[in-house]
């Protein structure tokens, strides 16, 4: 219990970020026309690909001899990249179609 309190104390700024982000996310999304639900979901999907940064850090910290960490990290970076790159490209493809016939 003590440890948890200490943890919250130490990271109080993070808790602020979390809470503000939650409200921000709700605020940003709630006025979306249903037309854009699919592209939006896809765009959000690409954004949570930020996990890739964690994967890069893990990979970059792994000692050269630690093959388990290297292989798993390698895999994690690939999967994260797939999420990010694929996500943004798919979203762009969807939205590109909205554009061209707009006139």
């Amino acid at each position: 219990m003590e440890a948890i309190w200490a943890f919250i104390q130490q990271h109080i700024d993070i808790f602020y970020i979390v809470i503000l982000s939650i409200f921000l996310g709700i605020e940003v999304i709630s006025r979306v026309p249903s037309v854009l639900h699919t592209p939006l979901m896809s765009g959000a999907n690409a954004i949570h690909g930020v996990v890739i940064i964690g994967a890069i850090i893990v990979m970059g910290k792994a000692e050269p001899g630690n093959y388990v960490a290297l292989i798993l990290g390698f895999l994690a970076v690939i999967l994260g990249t797939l999420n990010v790159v694929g996500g943004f490209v798919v979203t762009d493809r969807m939205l590109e179609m909205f554009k061209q016939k707009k006139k």
Partner: protein
Amino acid sequence: MQDSLLSIIYLVGSVTFIIGLKMLSAPTTARKGNLVAAAGMALAVFGTIFLYREGDTRLHNYGWIFSALVIGSVVGVLAAKKVKMTAMPEMVSMFNGMGGACAGLISIIEFNHMQHAGGAASVGMLLTIVLGLIIGSVSFAGSIIAWGKLNGKIKDKSFSGQHIFNLLILGVIVVIAAVLVGQFVPNLQTTLFYVLTALALVYGILFVLPIGGADMPVVISLLNSFTGVAAACGGFLYNNPVMLTGGILVGSAGTILTILMCKAMNRSLKNVLIGSFGGGSGSSAGGGAQQQGNYKEISINDTAVLLAYANKVMIVPGYGLAVAQAQHVCHELESLLEERGVEVKYAIHPVAGRMPGHMNVLLAEADVSYDKLLEMEQANSEFATTDAVLILGANDVVNPAAKTDPGSPIYGMPILEVEKAKAVIVNKRSMKPGYAGIENELFFQPKTSMLFGDAKQVLQQLATEIKQV
């Protein structure tokens, strides 16, 4: 200096995510918004690679990192470029699963690292690692099942008492996680950790497996927000603000999006997640009991004449259109009719297809003009002045039972009130009920005529006929 540069890069990254999401929610700025977020992501990724340092040590293993980045990018771009518009939902689900798996793997590596480092682990660290593992694994397994369901590889499956069984697994997961984080049995930490991983994967599978295919969009959206939270756990772990803001933003936005989707179907999230159990048998019993009245068929010729001499035609697209890849022929038919002076519009139900907005994307691909697509309320007010409604592979979204039959599983869902129009033509492949598995009395109404066949073939034939009328 480098540290503060990286902090600023992260700050810029977080801001681009917020602006990107904001811009994504308006049609005119959406595409730019996506690019803004992508640029922020690239900045954050390369900033991390070159500037990140822990104490005085920089990251190494650049060879591994870059080859993984290249492999991921090439495969990702190819997959995203090659996927058909109709398969978009399952592609999103697949990418989401990759993100979840990535979060899970990070947790596994960090846990191993911690075990090797020895000494007492901080509770906070352990908690975020375990949370990231559970949420990431559930999201990964669930997304893969959702992907399989949408492309028809996996059928709906449930066994009696599965609901309780699922809750039981979830309970066990919580207990093991608590033991693990509290470090009550220090010798068993590693074993418990892998048991937990396995259970989380099993839970992800069992969680999605019984949910009907029609509800997959809601599930994908929910899993999407799960992955967001898993990413945010990583942000906690590394004290990394972009991961944190990005993850939480997606977590909360995804949750809201999920709720919006449920609202469009007039169901609660609980109902979607739990209602599927047993709901299948109940609804089919109800459907079977309903009158199997007579329906009348209409020929291609007659349909062509009817449409060609109408003043106003409303097209109601559904999943059938997507499956048949008929969007281009549909646009061709629309142009032919317009040339003859017929006013053609599309009535888009918010949940038509397998994802909200699915139909819009599909029709946009075929160059159908944006202002021809009417949202539900607008369409409903125009049906009364419509001469002919052409329903292409849509079923549940035009089922009057949603308004009239309180016993129906879709009762209360807002529908397109096509029966207000003078004539209704329904194109379906057969009389089989739609995704919700219920009979549609619209098909037996005197105004309605059935035009059986694959949407694409039927539309092609219709187009040829109309040219000759």
